[in-house]
């Protein structure tokens, strides 16, 4: 909801009757006829021996209920965060199997693990597993009201609660069945705030970088934001080749951190270093303008050299062809700032030649 800008606590606001019992007046949306059953039956329950799956229609209804949970207060550091090397590995392996966190870059996943708390339990103790995701680190637990299967080290519990409270409102509870039971806990609010914070920081960084590049002077703020959102962040180690002379390429790079060396081979002679690129510099810009092969090789010079990578096809689909600003890229002797702020209003520079009638769109999207 409107919490995106505030760091203020926003307790969950739920739509009272949609999350409560189903509306009796509403006709059930029946599971579509026979043809569709193959889809449903292909889904095995999450763990063997789970209680009989409820009526499909009621499941559908459940899944249909609207959810809306805001970001909540974070109180990091309140829990014990001591985790051994083996435990960290265990958590990482488990989280990588999850739907929600599986695709996170390793660095961000590690940061997230650092924010996880630890819960300890003794045999027979009942632990409430609400407000987030749990990974069993040591010992085993049994889910109350579940199938009785022992969830041992590495098991993942309550992933759905990383997104929102359970729709049925019943808290997830587990009973420790071993003398010493240890669980790692990622709170929903911690997770959401971390994701939001890192995403926003990255967008801001990309935005600042894109705005500093002359080629993009003609883009509106809205267009730059689209680009900042769509471009890909990549990291290289020292010595990694980013582009190779003579190869076809469709990507344009902006150096985010670290540095890179530019090599060029003239004719049969060996490659020589012709330039150095530092944070804020760009290379591969020809790719946005033509299909010419790369005119040089660029190699990362530092460990953890980061680049922003803008793909030509993505760029064209998102913002139209760069046509107009080809000029100052191809003739860099003309001062860039002069060219881009001269003659034409800035937004004209990037207007696709063929689709000039779509000029209205720009004002529409940026309004």
């Amino acid at each position: 909801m409107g919490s995106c800008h505030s760091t203020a606590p926003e307790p969950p606001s739920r739509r009272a009757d949609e999350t409560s019992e189903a509306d009796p007046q509403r006709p059930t949306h029946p599971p579509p006829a026979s043809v569709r059953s193959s889809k449903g039956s292909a889904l095995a329950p999450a763990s063997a021996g789970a209680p009989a799956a409820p009526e499909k229609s009621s499941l559908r209804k459940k899944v249909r209920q609207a959810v809306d949970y805001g970001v909540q207060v974070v109180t990091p550091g309140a829990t014990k965060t001591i985790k051994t090397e083996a435990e960290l590995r265990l958590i990482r392996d488990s989280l990588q199997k999850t739907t929600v966190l599986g695709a996170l870059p390793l660095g961000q996943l590690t940061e997230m693990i650092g924010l996880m708390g630890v819960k300890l339990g003794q045999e027979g103790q009942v632990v409430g597993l609400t407000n987030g995701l749990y990974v069993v680190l040591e010992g085993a637990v049994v889910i109350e009201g579940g199938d009785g299967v022992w969830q041992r080290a590495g098991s993942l519990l309550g992933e759905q609660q990383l997104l929102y409270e359970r729709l049925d409102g019943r808290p997830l509870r587990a009973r420790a069945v071993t003398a010493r039971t240890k669980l790692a806990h990622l709170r929903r609010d911690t997770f959401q705030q971390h994701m939001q914070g890192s995403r926003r920081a990255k967008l801001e960084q990309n935005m600042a970088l894109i705005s500093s590049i002359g080629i993009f002077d003609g883009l509106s703020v809205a267009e730059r934001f689209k680009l900042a959102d769509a471009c890909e962040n990549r990291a290289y180690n020292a010595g990694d080749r980013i582009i190779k002379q003579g190869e076809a390429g469709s990507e344009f790079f902006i150096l985010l951190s670290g540095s890179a060396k530019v090599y060029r081979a003239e004719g049969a002679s060996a490659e020589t270093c012709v330039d150095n690129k530092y944070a804020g510099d760009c290379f591969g810009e020809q790719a946005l303008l033509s299909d010419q092969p790369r005119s040089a090789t660029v190699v990362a010079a530092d460990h953890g050299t980061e680049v922003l990578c803008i793909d030509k096809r993505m760029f064209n689909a998102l913002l139209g062809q760069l046509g107009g600003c080809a000029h100052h890229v191809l003739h860099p002797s003309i001062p860039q700032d002069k060219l881009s702020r001269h003659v034409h209003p800035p937004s004209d520079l990037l207007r696709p030649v063929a689709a000039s009638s779509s000029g209205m769109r720009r004002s529409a999207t940026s309004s």
Partner: protein
Amino acid sequence: MMVDVEIFRHLSAATRTQLLARMVRVSFADEDFVFRQGDDADKMYIIKSGEVEVLIDTPGGGIPPLQKIDHLFHGRCFGERALVRREPRMAHIRAKGALECLTISKTDFDELALAEQTGYWESRWEKEETRDPSQFKVLRSLGSGAFGTAYLVQHRMHPERIYALKALPKDSLSKRVCSDVVLREKDILASLPISLFVVTLHNAFQCPNNLYMLMDLAPGGELYQIMANNTRFHPLQARFYMACIVLAIEHLHRHSVIFRDLKPENLLIGREGYLKLIDMGFARRLRADEKAYTLCGTPYYLAPEMIQHLGHDKGLDWWSVGVLSFEMIDGSPPFLGNNEMEVYDKVLKLNYTYESDDAADGSYFCADSKDLIRRLICLEPSRRLGNLRDGAEDIKNHRWFTNPTPMVSSSGVARATPSFDWKDLAAGPNGPGRMNPPYVPNREKLSKLASPAIPQWNDKKLLSMNDIQTTEADKEHPRWIAGWSSFTM
């Protein structure tokens, strides 16, 4: 004080000064009639202090002879309608307690060309006539929504006007929910220009117990119900509905609003069979250079970026358009599972299938519809159709809409589906080229619904609503919610 009266706000400073100089003060005692119904009009009135009742003769000479239809207080004006329309008085005005008014004579009214602001007066009257629960007769309940109940109501003065009135009990709204969800919904609806494809908010008002939103009646019910009865649509029907949805979402996006909860439950079928988007509870305004992060929506329709908390913007709605299109043609949403996590897992793996490819009669997916859905159900928001350079135009120009696809009818005759005319759709039911909506609510049923012969809903709460009249004193009520009424003095 007079400068603050709403009817003067749109006037130029010069006109306002002249007007103030020409106004004459008049006083009335309790129960005095300021004027009577049928009188010739010679001036308009602005209430300086006190209250008046608006009464009309009971039709057919019934008992009691006079019927109270409205009441006005400080700052309001009356009597201007007869001047603008050059008609006799439409109602009696009776003072309630001591009354002091300022008057503008007919001559001054004409000299300052006040009557010529027709557009302004018309919209003002519409709002004025719909600013209080007592102005409506409740015919029946239409069902319960997220926070309150919707009623079918008829305007007392203009029985041909039928609306849906959503009543939200203040008891059930916590302060937070109220300001966050309900007020935002109202603000967004009130600020959107009128579109055929988005429900129109005619007015918003309140009494000490309830908040009210007066909206278009969409008598065809939820698209959800039709889908439930029908299981699936013929692709041509689905195409019509999808086109309505595309125009609705395009309309919101054009005004920097993202909807975030597109599903068949939130689409109603209007009088003419066109879809109307309702329920802006999750909608929010979003600048072109920001993203929203709050998880909200309905599991079947959640976009991948929402599940992964990567931040979302307009692209989110286009994802749901794709999911909904699939559901309309197939009969069930593309991503199904035994629980939400299974659904989300399939979403992130784009794991969905078309049941069969062999419907040669064109009653199922074709290559074009599959292609369109594939481009909408696209993991990367920045590559998703609808979210690219040309926005919704990309969808409108997609082959599924433009190509006259050859298909074989059940009788074995090959024919071509006509290409879709977006202009005709946007022009609406009264446009030059009429569309043929798959389902048009039965007119007979409609008039029956609205006929006063139907016994009133047997519900105390409902009936008591007929007596609710707000007074000036209500504004001091502790539960009065500032900023709710869209009609201000």
